[in-house]
């Protein structure tokens, strides 16, 4: 390619047409940027919660019971476990071991659903104890943030079910599986957010 050698003569940093074609898998960067902007959404509410906490003379406000840390820890273990299974599912697919992929993904979906059930149980018991969304700033920030997170988990479960169906339909292969990579990344992202929320509401 004459143009290319001419380009080299002009200076450095010149990509060949081949390199240009190689780097055009854009979706990965696009998806990372999506996760980044989503994390800002959480960050903003986390700072709001910290601000409300600093404005309160006592935290949690009087008459408010903190959510049960044991139940929260159990839920956290379930969610992190689902992160591990999601990781192995991805690996199995890359090694072309489809059965392993399918079972690990099903495990992830079940664990994710268990997390949602646990959260539902927690919500109802908190409401029984009078901790409500509109009652105090603690309830407001707790239910807003964990609700937003729970919504993300719910979307993630749907996302995993869709990718599982797609894999069974033969959409993904060990070498071409961006949709699966994205779903797995998203699932890990939701895990990481939970670490922060767990510290914020159960421990700190």
């Amino acid at each position: 390619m004459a143009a290319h050698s001419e380009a080299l003569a002009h200076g450095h940093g010149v990509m060949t047409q081949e390199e240009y074609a190689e780097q055009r898998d854009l979706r990965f960067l696009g998806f990372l940027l999506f996760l980044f902007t989503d994390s800002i959404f959480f960050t903003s509410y986390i700072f709001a919660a910290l601000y409300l906490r600093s404005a309160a003379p006592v935290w949690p406000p009087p008459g408010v019971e903190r959510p049960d840390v044991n139940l929260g820890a159990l839920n956290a273990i379930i969610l992190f476990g689902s992160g591990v299974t999601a990781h192995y599912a991805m690996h199995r697919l890359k090694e072309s071991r489809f059965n392993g992929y399918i079972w690990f993904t099903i495990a992830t979906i079940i664990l994710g659903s268990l997390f949602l059930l646990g959260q539902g149980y927690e919500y109802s018991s908190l409401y029984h104890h009078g901790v409500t969304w509109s009652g105090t700033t603690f309830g407001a920030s707790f239910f807003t943030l964990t609700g937003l997170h729970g919504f993300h988990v719910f979307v993630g479960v749907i996302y995993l079910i869709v990718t599982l169906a797609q894999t069974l339909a033969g959409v993904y292969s060990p070498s071409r599986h961006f949709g699966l990579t994205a779903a797995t990344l998203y699932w890990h992202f939701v895990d990481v957010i939970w670490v922060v929320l767990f510290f914020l509401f159960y421990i700190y």
Partner: protein
Amino acid sequence: MSIDTIAVLRRADAPIHPAPESFVRKYLFSIDHKVIGIQYFIAAGLMVLLSGLFAEAIRIQLTSPHNTFLTPQQFNEAFTFHGTLMVWFGAIPIVTGAFGNCVMPLQIGARDVAFPWLNMVSFWTAPPAMLILLSSLAFGAPDAGWTEYPPVSLQAGVGIVFWTVAIFTIGIGATLTGLNFLTTVVKMRAPGMTFTRMPLFVWATAVTSVLSLVATTALASALGSLFLSHVFNIPFYDPSRGGTVVLFQHMFWFYSHPAVYIMILPVFGIVSEIIPTFARKPIFGYKLIAYSTVSIALLSFMVWAHHMFTSGLGVWVTLPFMILTMLIGVPTGIKIFSWVATLFGANMRLTTPMLFVLGFLSTFTLGGITGIMLAAVPVDWHEHATYFLVAHIHYVLFGGTLMGVFAGIYYWWPKFTGRMMSEKLGKLHFWLTFIFFNTTFLPMHFVGLLGMPRRVAYYDPAYHSINLFISINAFILGAVTLLLLVNMFWSLKKGPAAGPNPWGARTLEWMISSPPPYYNFKEIPEVYSGPYGYGEPLPYSAPYNQVSVTPSY
């Protein structure tokens, strides 16, 4: 060419979509970045005109101290809609959606943005959002100003819910546009176009995209909590239940201060393109202009509380924010001085785009200086919520953003329509805009210093004559803007053919025909050097180095 090379080239073609056949896919649900840019331009342009009408209604009310043209309630709604429409539905979509979409992919030698389909979705969040916002007029319109501070906004009717939903919706589009543009700039530059060979408008668009990704999402959270407060009675902003209204101001301004730079950074990019083209010189301090864009963006996240000096923050909070705010004057000053240094000793061509850029330089600098004044806490305590603030924001947003947008329209119009605009009408438009802009907004500084509060329907009769003067000039300023529309229609009907490069510019968009073909570049150009080397051969591979760079005006 080996078989392997052909296969690779075909893969480079792979993300390119085939040209659409039907009317709907071609003009309505198009995924072509140029069409989407024009769609943004039309939709946002209509919103700017509508917002201008609200502004004129405000000025009619203020022609006399106790005017009955609007009730105080309607007056509140008028300035709320003026601000909301201008910021989210006019300025931001025009500088990012319209200019970014039209120009950026062409300047980096790409055939489209990274995610063409997502681009279409981004645009189509805007029309529903506009309809939702306007429909709130029928359900108790929002009336607490474009910032909608609680508790006032929480005492209003259901219109505020429409307001939050509308801005949330168009915000999704803005965020997706930012994601799309950043991916495009990072991944799809033509071979050889390193970061320091990018045109400065591309730099500005990339940095603006980062701002959109961070700030628009933060705004979404502020809007979300306002929505929840109104609909589900959440106590975030209710002091009786432990909440605090200042929290909303923090959340809102953490977005809205960077939003100011979302509105101005692309305009800095436009100015940086136009100045070297008509000064016929390489731009002075290319890297300084590029890096100062980045530092403005970084600083913009650290200054939000300067909007809240009168909200009762402690001295230990206001002092660092004051210093950081004044610090923004440094990178902005670097830009202004670089542009002036480019003009120094240049054989300037005073075409319409250049005139608007020169107008921009003078009025924006004035607005920047009043910005530094307002950054000083004691001054701000005195001037906050007076017309001095109104004058400042209009000097940077009208004298800055809108002047730059006008310059950009006159500059790139021939590229996208293939026809020239009338220089005579354009120059008339510039001079009338420049004169009546200053006669409208300069006196606002004085009434502000005298103590006239903003956002009030009635005022002290002592300020009558000066307000009448402002109003008359504002009516003329509004009418003058119609000259641009006349010029556009004239150009579309009778404008002379533009040819590929009427201004003799050197960036990639001028190396292809006007209007650009559907695929922009039949083969991807290779880039050997930066774009502003006036007097040197064009730094692009054939066939993109064949265009004459001698101006044809």
